[in-house]
């Protein structure tokens, strides 16, 4: 989380709202460890990562929804039959990503 603080501060100073996504659980093999974070702004900026690129686009969309609703959200990503070719993790693991708005 420390690594994305400069971006979060800069975006907020510029007037954007910001959501932070954090890997809170990893099962099996996954590209980024627990604690990896990604920040997304209402202006469409993105910093950091929660996987090796496999689910960042999906998390970006979820983060936009979290910014609209103000409600934090826990999302599970992994290889399932219907997700294998969609937003599944290439490495075969499962991750849980918590997406929350940065609030006052």
């Amino acid at each position, binding site marked *: 989380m*420390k690594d994305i603080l400069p971006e979060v501060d800069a975006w907020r100073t510029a007037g954007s709202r910001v959501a932070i996504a954090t890997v809170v659980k990893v099962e099996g093999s996954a590209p980024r460890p627990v604690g990896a974070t990604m920040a997304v702004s209402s202006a469409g900026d993105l910093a950091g990562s929660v996987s090796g690129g496999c689910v960042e686009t999906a998390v970006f969309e979820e983060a936009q929804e979290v910014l609209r609703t103000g409600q934090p959200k826990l999302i599970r990503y992994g290889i399932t039959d219907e997700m294998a070719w969609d937003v599944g993790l290439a490495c075969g693991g499962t991750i849980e990503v918590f997406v929350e708005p*940065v609030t006052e």
Partner: protein
Amino acid sequence: MTGLAPSRVEMQSRLEQALATRTPVAVATVVRGGQVGAKLLILPGETLGGLGDAPLDLAVQTDAPDLLARERSETRPYHVAGHPEPVEVFIETFPPPPTLLIFGAVHVAQPLSRFAKALGFDVIVSDARAKLATVERFPDADRVIQGWPDETLAEVEILPNTYVAILSHDPKFDEPALIGTLGTPAAYIGAIGSRNTNEDRRRRLAEAGMSPEQIARMRAPIGLDIGAATPEEMAISILGEIIALRRGRDGGSLTAATGRIRGAREEAVAAR
């Protein structure tokens, strides 16, 4: 539990203050069941915020120091009165960063300082030579100390998360740095030099009264065996050795390895 709940801004500013002052700190967040999104900031002897249940706050506060000591963050289930399913709390820890103390403000020390900063180390560079020990040469370093090794060691406390790289190539700097650090709890002490230099160096350290155990702690020639030739490559070789040591690994090629790719060796064993 009286008074107004602290604002998120206050919690964020206390977190950033703790990070800046190298205070061990943890942030707990309810991620499933219970009051999702509720946060507790855990500082030494103090907490801010709350997870929506006082016994839960206490249980999480009790678990945080062990996670901090192991440099781990994880989601744990807690049984909370009134919730049939466990409430899951993500405990993110921010242990103070390790320090890299570099003796010898030489060419190799410049990429080493830069790369170590990128890896999250606090970097201190020390050299008695005023021409070399300058902030201009080490813009990324947290501290540049112009002084002899004994002067530097009087100013810098060597902790179990201190890593020492001795790079000056000159016995009149290298040996006091080695003698001054081999008896400390430093996690790593590496010294540059050829195999011949290191034979002489080990003999002189013994003559200076260092024990065989202390001399055996020295990693010399410093770095992993990757054929490093340029200052940048040597910096990678040194940091590779430091990362491997931090994680209890040998530093070989993953092609030839088995088990888990990431993290400490004991986690790899526990995961099998």
